[in-house]
Each structure stands twice: as structure tokens, then as C-alpha cells.
């Protein structure tokens, strides 16, 4: 009984680790059993090589973390379904390797290690015999520790990153969150948890056998983590129940119907697996409460006017495109486009639908690699630098569609941009151990977030649920997030879509305020009234070429522009 409890608690560690990738990172990882195998077999081999038990467990966890990071990097660019496919294949690959190499796995008998294990501590001069009750204590402590750690991380900068990772990866990149590395790091942590769990089980049972870490285990752990994902706090407990209840329930069922016990356990796992996706949505609806309700940090008591005029104290820069050719697939979208976005200016990019405005914006943001031409930031050539690299250099974009982070209040969303724009190395780890410097960083970030909220006139809605914001306010929030990355060049894709008249006026004020602060703004927009009210310079695109460029007055007078906007060359017909 005690042995079983310890076994389940060890498995719970693996579930908690898996929940990091599945529930927090949003990646369907199906290979937790493979990482468990790394821990289980690793600890036996390392012990045989002469390492003491504690060191062996630690080393096995480190090896698993490296493996996890590697798998994470390989799968980081894939969509959800492909992640599931590749991790599922990885689980079977490890299983096949264990069968192919009996020297590693001990064949179907498995590797046996001497029991009971003893922990010798040279430091304290004590020897602890690892009896099952000791295992229960160790595993239970580890579970509690990891639950506390995860809860703490969720409230800190890591929690913000994770929310962005799982809900809107493209947005996360545009806000300076290194999506690929974060995903890999999450999977590395997941794997380390699994290795500790596997090592614990091996020490507990005294044997590591391939059949104990089969892909079926990966599936079971995935089911448990999925259930755990629907409710963060009591989810893991529920997950444990699934692991703990299915085998005995299978036996009961087997007794009742007269079937083999193992198989009925498998049938039950399958049925649970079918039930989970059906149940997930209703459970989520049931438990979906507004998560930000409890904590409402106070706004720092400073004069809001002063806030709004505080400068970013970053030197302004000019983003230049020279003879830019951009194509998507086979078709050429832009040919020979010249564009200069100067610091302190609002530069509007207008043109009919399909003229290539958004494509130009994406190319400048680093999301599309141009086929020809050159993009430079001041004197530096940044042609072909990725989107993430551009954010690091101070070039941030917004999206045409409203990309939501439904569960984060505006204040936290802006904070995400602040942290993405000025990254602190190993923020999550330092936050976990409560480093004093992190406290300062957090205070600075909070002040910066409030400054941005004031600049964009969203401070009143700082703690409201994003769903309750009007369409126009949501567009403004997108701008605020981008501003928060301390961008020196802002590329805004139709920010005024869905805005009411007063909201457009607010947007115009915000844009002028940003320009006055030395930010270079590129504004892709259809609303000609807004453009002519706010822009210092206008470039008109038509069918991928620059039709005209210059001051608003000059472009308005340009006959070619009048022709495409007004449909004829007669200056007397001015109803646009």
C-alpha cells in the first residue's frame, strides 16, 4: 500500500512536469514516458558507474533536461498536431531503442538495482535507508515543492510569457518573447521532472524495465495532465486520481466480467482519453472565472500628467527600405519600394486593397524575407533579420486582426511588452528564488507599464477584462503593448479599424504624443481623414509600387493619387 502510494506520488511529479508543457506552454507533448525512461535507466547506469545515488539522480535529470531541450528545439516551430505527432514518434523511438539494445535496458527483465537503497551523507554523517515510507515523504515533499514553485512562477514574469506562448505565439514574438527558446526550456523542465520521477520509481521498485515506461504510460500521463490543465489548482490531484484509480478499477472490472486485468486498464485509459476532450470545454466553462479578480496592484502615486510626458530616453532612429522587392511564394507583391520612417514622424502608408501595405509592414518587421533590396536601421543593415531580432533592435509591429490574450488584463498585457522589450536574463529562475534585483526589476517594469497605459490613455481600464473593452479600446491596447516594448520604430497595421469617432481622435493624440517622444511611426491605414490629420509624411502604394511620397499636401495634389482614390482626374469632384 505504501509502495503504491509512493509510486503514484512519483508519477504525480511527472504529471506536474508535463503540465508545464501541456497546460502552461500549450504544447501537446506525448513522450513523457520516454523522459521517465531516461531517469529510470540513467540512474541505474550512473550508479553502476560509481556515482552516489543523489548525484546519479541529479545527473540523470540533467541528461533528460538536455534531451528535452533538444526535442523542444526540434518541435518548437511545429503546429500543435505536428508536435503531438513528433513527440508520439519520439516516445515509440525510445521504446524501440530500449528493445533494440538489451545492454541499455536489461531486455524484457529490465535492470535490477540492489534494494533497499541507502542515502549516505558525508556532510551530516547519517545514513537514511529508503524504505517505502521514506519514499512517500520524499515524493510528497517534491510534489508540494513543485506545486509551490509553479504557482509562484505563474504569478511572475514566466506566467506572462506562458500565457502569450499558448494563446498567441506570433503576438508573443512581436512583443519580444523568445518563443522557440521558451518552448524548449519548458520541455527541458518537463523532462527533468520526468527523470526525477523515473529515478524515484526505479529506486522504489528496485528495477527499471522497458514495459514500465511504454508509450501507454506517456498516454496516461498526458490524460492526467490534460485533466489537470482544466483547473490549475486541484487539477493535478484529479490527474493523480486518474492514474491511481484506473488500475484497481480495471481489476475490479476484470473480476466482474472475467477479462485480463491489464487490458481492461487500457480500455479504461482509452475511454478516459475519449471523454477528456468532450469534458474539457464544459469543465473549463464551469471553472472559468476571471483570474485577475483577486489581485489589483495599486497604481504608483505619481502625477498622471507627468507620467504621460516622461520620455523613453532612447535615441530616435530611422528605418529605411531601399528598392525593396517582396514576394510571397511565386507571386511578387512589392517591387522597388523605397520608404523612410524617420524618428519623431508619423509616416502613413496608404493605398487601395491589395496594394501591398501589410506586406511592406511585415517585411519591415522582419516577418517576411525580402527577395531584393535593403532594409536598414540608421546605418545598420537589417535585411533578413528575423522578427524577434527586429524587436530586440526596437522595431515592433501590431497585427491587422485583433489578437487577444483573453485572460490577461490590460495592465498585464502591457507588462508583457515591457518585459519582452527589456529582457532580464534568467528572469524565471531569479524570480523563483526571490532575488532582490528581480524585485527592483519588477518595480521598474510596473512603473513603465503604467507610463505606457497613461500615454495610450488606457489607465482607466487597466484591470478590466479584455472582453469588456470596446473594439476600439482593444485596438488601442494593441498599440499600447507594442509601445511597451520601448520600440523606437512602431509599425501599426490599421489600428483604427472598428474605432468610433472619439476613439480615432484619441488614437491621433496618442500617435502625435509618441512622435513627439521621438518614436518613428509607420501607420498603415484606410481612414484618409485620420491619415491626413496625423501624418507628417504619406506614401501611396498601388499594385506593389510607390505611386507618390511626400507631405500630405503634396500627395493630396498628386494627379496619380487623385486618380486611384477619386476615380477620375477632375479636381472638382471631391466627395471621396
Amino acid at each position: 500500500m505504501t509502495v503504491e502510494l509512493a509510486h503514484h506520488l512519483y508519477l504525480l511529479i511527472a504529471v506536474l512536469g508535463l503540465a508545464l508543457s501541456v497546460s502552461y506552454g500549450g504544447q501537446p507533448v506525448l513522450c513523457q514516458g520516454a523522459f521517465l525512461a531516461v531517469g529510470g535507466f540513467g540512474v541505474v547506469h550512473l550508479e553502476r558507474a560509481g556515482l552516489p545515488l543523489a548525484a546519479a539522480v541529479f545527473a540523470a535529470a540533467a541528461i533528460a533536461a538536455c534531451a528535452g531541450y533538444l526535442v523542444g528545439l526540434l518541435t518548437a516551430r511545429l503546429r500543435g498536431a505536428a508536435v503531438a505527432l513528433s513527440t508520439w514518434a519520439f516516445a515509440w523511438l525510445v521504446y524501440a531503442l530500449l528493445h533494440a539494445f538489451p545492454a541499455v535496458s536489461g531486455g524484457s527483465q529490465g535492470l535490477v538495482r540492489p534494494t533497499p537503497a541507502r542515502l549516505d551523507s558525508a556532510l551530516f554523517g547519517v545514513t537514511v535507508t529508503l524504505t517505502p515510507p521514506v519514499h512517500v515523504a520524499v515524493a510528497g515533499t517534491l510534489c508540494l515543492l513543485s506545486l509551490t514553485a509553479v504557482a509562484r512562477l505563474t504569478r511572475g514574469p514566466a506566467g506572462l510569457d506562458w500565457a502569450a506562448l499558448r494563446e498567441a505565439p506570433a503576438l508573443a514574438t512581436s512583443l519580444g518573447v523568445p518563443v522557440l527558446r521558451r518552448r524548449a526550456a519548458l520541455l527541458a523542465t518537463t523532462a527533468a521532472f520526468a527523470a526525477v520521477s523515473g529515478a524515484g520509481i526505479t529506486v522504489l521498485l528496485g528495477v527499471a524495465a522497458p514495459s514500465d515506461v511504454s508509450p501507454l504510460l506517456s498516454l496516461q500521463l498526458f490524460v492526467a495532465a490534460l485533466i489537470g490543465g482544466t483547473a490549475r489548482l486541484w487539477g493535478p490531484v484529479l490527474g493523480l486520481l486518474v492514474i491511481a484509480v484506473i488500475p484497481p478499477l480495471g481489476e475490479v472490472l476484470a473480476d466482474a466480467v472475467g477479462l485480463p486485468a491489464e487490458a481492461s486498464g487500457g480500455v479504461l485509459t482509452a475511454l478516459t482519453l475519449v471523454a477528456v476532450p468532450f469534458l474539457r470545454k464544459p469543465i473549463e466553462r464551469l471553472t472559468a472565472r476571471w483570474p485577475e479578480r483577486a489581485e489589483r496592484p495599486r497604481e504608483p502615486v505619481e502625477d498622471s500628467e507627468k507620467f504621460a510626458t516622461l520620455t523613453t530616453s532612447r535615441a530616435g532612429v530611422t528605418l529605411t527600405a531601399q528598392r525593396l522587392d517582396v514576394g510571397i511564394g511565386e507571386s511578387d507583391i512589392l517591387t522597388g519600394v523605397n520608404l523612410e520612417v524617420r524618428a519623431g514622424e508619423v509616416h502613413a502608408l496608404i493605398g487601395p486593397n491589395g496594394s501591398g501595405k501589410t506586406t511592406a509592414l511585415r517585411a519591415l518587421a522582419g516577418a517576411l524575407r525580402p527577395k531584393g533590396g535593403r532594409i536598414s536601421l540608421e546605418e545598420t543593415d537589417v535585411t533578413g533579420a528575423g522578427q524577434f531580432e527586429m524587436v530586440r533592435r526596437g522595431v515592433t509591429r501590431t497585427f491587422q486582426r485583433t489578437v487577444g490574450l483573453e485572460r490577461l488584463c490590460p495592465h498585464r498585457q502591457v507588462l508583457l511588452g515591457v518585459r519582452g522589450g527589456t529582457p532580464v536574463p534568467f528572469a524565471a529562475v531569479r524570480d523563483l528564488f526571490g532575488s532582490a534585483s528581480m524585485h527592483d526589476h519588477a518595480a521598474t517594469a510596473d512603473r513603465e507599464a503604467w507610463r505606457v497605459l497613461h500615454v495610450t490613455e488606457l489607465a482607466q481600464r487597466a484591470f478590466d477584462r479584455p472582453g469588456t473593452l470596446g473594439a476600439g479600446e482593444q485596438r488601442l491596447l494593441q498599440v499600447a503593448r507594442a509601445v511597451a516594448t520601448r520600440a523606437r520604430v512602431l509599425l501599426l497595421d490599421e489600428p483604427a479599424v472598428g474605432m468610433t469617432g472619439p476613439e480615432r481622435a484619441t488614437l491621433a493624440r496618442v500617435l502625435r504624443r509618441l512622435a513627439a517622444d521621438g518614436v518613428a511611426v509607420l501607420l498603415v491605414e484606410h481612414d484618409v481623414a485620420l491619415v491626413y490629420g496625423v501624418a507628417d509624411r504619406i506614401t501611396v502604394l498601388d499594385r506593389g509600387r510607390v505611386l507618390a511620397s511626400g507631405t500630405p499636401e503634396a500627395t493630396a495634389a498628386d494627379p496619380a493619387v487623385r486618380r486611384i482614390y477619386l476615380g477620375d482626374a477632375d479636381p472638382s469632384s471631391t466627395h471621396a
Partner: protein
Amino acid sequence: MSGGVALQAFMSGLALGTAYGLIAMGFSLVFRLTGVVSFAHGDLVVGGVFIGVLVVLGSTPVAAALDVMHSVGLAVLVVAAGAALSASVYLLAVRPFLPGAGHRSARGDVLGWVAGGLAAGLLIREVLGLVLTQDAYAVPDPLRLGSLTPSGALQLPGGGTVAVRTLGVIGIGLAVGILVERLLVLTPVGTAMKAVSEDPTAAALLGLPVRRLVFAAFVVAGALAGLAGLLISPDRSLSVDDGVVLGLKAMAAALVGGLGSVRGALAGGLALGVIESFVVASSVLGPQYADVIPLAILLIVLALGRRGLRSTLREDPE
């Protein structure tokens, strides 16, 4: 490896590869129309074979010699069972999580159909496992091509031999594969399917019965899987759990052949079968790598795959 052994390995690789190709064709067809990675696909193969055998023999499989009636019955049943299994997997575990016609970009509830497919596969394995308790079974051969020559084998130049059955498998498999591929290109139904794969919304707006076409694709995929099972299972001892690895290998074949192309899937299957056969015959690697190498290929192709894959499987967040 001598020339004769190499030729022999090549021939058995082709036989294995046609089976992989048939499974991969169904996988590609389904993926093309729905964007669904069908996780239960390999289990359809094994499920189809065992259901057919259980019904025809009325007992757990023995390598019995079948008369003509039973042979034909077995062949028809296995293919039908594959199609029926595929249809039920679609209706029970995939369709509830698909978006309505015209929302393929959202791909529906991905976690839902991934879990649904995995669960359906597991359920097939476990339910069969309730009846089939041995590690592996020899499955009777409905083709009976071995009796064409006295030894059941032909001499190959260079000293190797090839079973007549192997040639039959290659012939039948390739013929059916090419026939289905041609039908998908030439018939109105195939054209309609192509329309759905390119733009489900537009297809629905043009009045095409998108859901029925998707259902048909799953049925065809299941039938191809059943046929593949029929072709390869008598050559080896078949275990209930073989389905997953078989399915993953077929996915590797489909990926190698450029995901979404039915013709490519058949070619990819042939390539993968030959590679596996040479791995097994090789003195350096040997049979224990038979599963390792294809799975490694699957992972590598997924992670570092060609540009064409990116739009379908990748999101490239950076």
C-alpha cells in the same frame, strides 16, 4: 552485402513499401481534405486484419490453409473491416472536433481530435487485446500465391530468392495504389475532393457535399489500410500492438513523399520500405533497427522538413 542479397532485400523492401505506400496514401488523402493527422490510422490496419480473421476462422488466428471461399471472404472482410473501422473512428473521434465546413484555418479543436485519434487507436488495440492474448499471431494467407511454384519461390540472378508471394504483393499493391490515384485524378468525385482540399469554404459554397466527401475519404483510407494489412500480415507474425509503429512508418512515408500528395505517399512508402529492408539485411545495422530508423526519419523530416511542409505543419512564430 552481395548483389544477390541486395536484390533480394530490394524486392522484399518493395513489397513492404507497397503496403506502407497504401497506408500512407489514405493518411495523405485524409490530411489533404481535413488537415487531420490521423493517429489511429495504423491501428486500422491491424484491426481490419484481426477482425477479418476472427470472423472467418471463428477463432483466434492459426496459419491454416484456406479454401477459395474462405480466402475470398477473408480478403473482402478485411478490406471492409478497415473501411468500417475508419468510418467509425471518423464519426466518433474526429468529426465532433472538426469545425463546420469552411473553417479549416481554425482546424477545429486540435487537442480534441488528437486525443480522439489516440484514444480510438488505443481502444482498438485494447479491445482486440481482450480476445487476442498472445504476443503475436500467424495470419492465414488468402492470396495463396506460394502454390504457383513447387518451392513457392523464384531464383533471382546473383543467388538470392524471392517468394512468388512477394511479387504478387508488389503487383496487387501497386496496381490498386495507381488505380486509386488515377480515380482521384480522373473521376468527378476525385475532382470534388481536390476542390475540398484546396478550399473547403469555396467547395461548400459551390454546393459540394463537403462532409460526405470527407467521410468518403476516411472510408477509402480505411479500405486501403485494410488491403495493406492483408498484403503484409501473412509474411510476419502480427501483434495487436504493431499498429502504432505501422501507422507512424506510414506517416513517415507520407511526409517523405511530400505531405498531401497521394502519388507522393505511394512513392514515399516504396522508398521507406526499401530503406527498412536494407537496414534489416545490413550486417552493420541489422533487424533491431527495423523500427528505429523509420521513426528517426519521421522525426527528422518533421523537424527539418522541406518548405512545402511549413505552411501545413509549421507556424514559424519567429
